[in-house]
């Protein structure tokens, strides 16, 4: 017999965002982690080095960030689910391997716990200054997926989604965290979280000759076999045809480049994670992401309470830009207020997607959270 009293007791865990990322990764099936120490991402490594070895997984401290992500790419092609984590200075060093993972379709989850830049900046101050860098910091400019958590719960769930998306689309997936999310501790009812079903990359149907980059009609992602399989697998960072050998055929190259973009751009509606609070009669929609969403939600609630409603859209998928979602949620408002912990990065996308709306921007880069009072001020400066 079920004791209902017991069922209703909410048992909370107490952890920081970085730790929640580690637990989410483990639940998603991550069995290889390599990273180089850097504040404020180090505590992800600290958690993984405890969690992975007893599970038969690998946690390696690379000699630098280039090596760390390189090891992940090797292990991913051997069939393991892999993750690495760093902050802005490490993201700079990841660049060549992010390009590799994009062009050669290697599943990997990359956590960026952002800190105040430019450059080494401030190790223990938060920012969202790498939002465009994650998208464009690769050679070739093909898209990536970027998910942005606002709190500890998001860290757990979005990390699981990140693994699923990396597996499904064979691409790098970023978790764009921030010192203020990663190193802030919260109570979390980890048992009550609705987990997404865990996905794995798709093996080819048997009976056909395997080509490592062949894409069947109606599909957008090549089948995966691991290096070490009975059937030979080729992986290469060079411009390649379906067989994994260099190609110079412009038509073949163009087709592949087109697919590398469209496989994500055409699918973003399937993974446009967000929270939307739309109020009847609201003139303004706040659009924000990351830790700033928390202060924005305070403002949304206080406005609702006093009967002068504003609407709020918290984006959790930043790239590809969930354009349909943004258009739909902004449809009824006259004005959109964009808030970011940087000097204006994602607002470029909002302005592009919503050319008919009045767009107001507020951003701050001083190591401090944007406060509810500051948002209030922005709202009242209509």
């Amino acid at each position, binding site marked *: 017999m079920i004791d209902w009293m017991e069922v209703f007791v909410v048992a909370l865990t107490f952890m920081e965002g970085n730790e929640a990322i580690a637990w989410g990764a483990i639940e998603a099936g991550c069995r290889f982690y390599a990273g180089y120490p850097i504040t404020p991402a180090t505590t992800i490594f600290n958690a993984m080095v405890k969690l992975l070895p007893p599970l038969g997984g690998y946690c390696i401290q690379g000699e630098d960030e*280039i090596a760390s992500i*390189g090891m992940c790419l090797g292990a991913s092609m051997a*069939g393991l689910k892999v993750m690495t984590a760093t902050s802005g200075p490490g993201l700079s060093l990841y660049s060549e391997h992010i390009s590799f993972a994009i062009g050669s379709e290697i599943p990997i989850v990359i956590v960026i716990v952002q800190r105040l830049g430019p450059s080494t900046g401030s190790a223990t101050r938060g920012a969202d200054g790498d939002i465009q860098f994650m998208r464009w910091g690769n050679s070739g400019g093909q898209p990536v997926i970027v998910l942005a958590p606002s709190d500890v719960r998001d860290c757990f769930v979005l990390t699981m989604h990140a693994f699923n998306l990396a597996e499904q689309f064979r691409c790098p997936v970023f978790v764009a965290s921030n010192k203020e999310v990663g190193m802030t501790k919260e109570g979390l009812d980890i048992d009550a979280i609705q987990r997404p079903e865990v996905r794995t990359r798709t093996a080819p149907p048997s009976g056909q000759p395997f080509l490592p980059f062949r894409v069947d009609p109606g599909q957008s992602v090549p089948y995966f076999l691991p290096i070490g399989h009975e059937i*030979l697998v080729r992986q*290469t*960072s060079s411009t390649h045809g379906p067989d994994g050998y260099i190609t110079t055929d412009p038509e073949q190259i163009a087709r592949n480049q087109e697919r590398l973009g469209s496989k994500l751009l055409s699918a973003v509606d399937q993974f446009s994670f967000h929270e939307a609070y739309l109020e009847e009669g609201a003139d303004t929609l706040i659009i924000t992401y990351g830790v700033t969403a928390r202060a924005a939600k305070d403002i949304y609630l206080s406005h609702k309470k006093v009967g002068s409603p504003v609407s709020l859209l918290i984006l959790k998928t930043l790239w590809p830009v969930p354009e349909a979602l943004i258009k739909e949620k902004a449809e009824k408002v006259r004005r959109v207020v964009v808030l970011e912990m940087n000097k204006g990065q994602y607002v470029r996308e909002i302005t592009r997607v919503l050319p008919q709306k009045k767009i107001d921007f507020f951003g701050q880069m001083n190591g401090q959270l944007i406060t509810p009072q500051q948002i209030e001020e922005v709202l009242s400066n209509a």
Partner: protein
Amino acid sequence: MPSLLNKSRPPVFCPGCTHERVVRALDEAYQNMGLKGNQIAMVSDIGCSGLIDTFFNTHAFHGLHGRALTYATGLKLARPELNVIVTMGDGGMGIGGAHFLSACRRNLDLTLIILNNFNFGMTGGQFSATTPPEAQVASGFLNSLERPLDICKVAISAGATYVTRCSSYKKDLAQEIERAIRHKGFSVIDIWGICVGRYAKKNRLTPQKIQESLSKFPSIEGIVEENQRKEYGIHYREMAKGQNTPPSPLRIEPSLESPEKDRQGIIILGNAGQRIITAGDILCLAGLSAGLRVTQKNEYNITVLRGPSISEVILSPEEIGYTGIHRPTVVIAIGQEGVSRRSHMFSKLNEETLIICSKDISLPQTNASIYTVDFKSQGIKSSDRALASLGVLAKLKKAINLEMLQAALEMRFKGPILESSLDLVHRIECY
């Protein structure tokens, strides 16, 4: 065993290039070892040496310049049964120096074949890490300013367990390569060759000259006795087996009642080393024991035991959005550095904020209510003052009470530390 050479993709090196000799010797080694293509992963990077994987019917992983060892490390750990053969040129050796050193130090069972031809052939013959200073190369006089790297000496001092230096023209090159592959650990084979297309155009280099140059070095052939040790993967798996599964995160069931109905913002201002963050942790656990929402964010410099340490804790019966604290209900001021870091805050406080202040702290001008504690006269040392302050809070029934604090301490500590911390929070005097 049959040859593993890819018949439809024959080597495309410049005529006379010694890389081709290495390709054939490598194939012979594979055959002699009875290896099938799917038992081998060839990992390569950029430059002429990076073409190698395409000439073989094996698994292949071709990536960025100098990074081959990083991919190989991930591959080999994930698939210990594979023979992982890494090829690099002297160029990759230079740009990937850190990876080379680390691979030597790790001793993972990889075979690194360095096709050393003393220049960047593919980009037009610029100098590399191994170009002699007297050579004529496409980098002007620059190579005359730098000293060439002795790859093998570096490998040995970095801890490689197997190191060989030889000529591409060596008679038993296939056997030499086979010995390196058979070694269980990281093996380096530095094979000197001739770049006919670039380097040899301006520098007279013949098989005999290579042999002469090699003979000037002390011979390095195979096993490095002083570096012998466990293979990294085997060692890792052995160590991993001995690791305990960490406990699932602690679940805290609320069973107590908070003395407060409203949201509490508590800022603890101290110096590094005063266990400020731990006190913040304990406050949160106390809040959770009473079913409250909690957040904790901390501020400190990257130095340990120096500088300010600040913990900001919110305890609230409602969902917590913004994690900063606009107007604290409680400030605990026990370290001057923390107080100085937030000095601007004090003038904005009114009597609704309670400051628990250590007697030796000089506070900026403030209208807040001040509760002074003389820790020193009670014999409470600096590192215990944060926890003792929580005892004061609990006794005043401000933000938490003693039951909540006790529950938190029982979650956080065990044994003698629990006992002494319980003693501390009970013993602290409160007027």
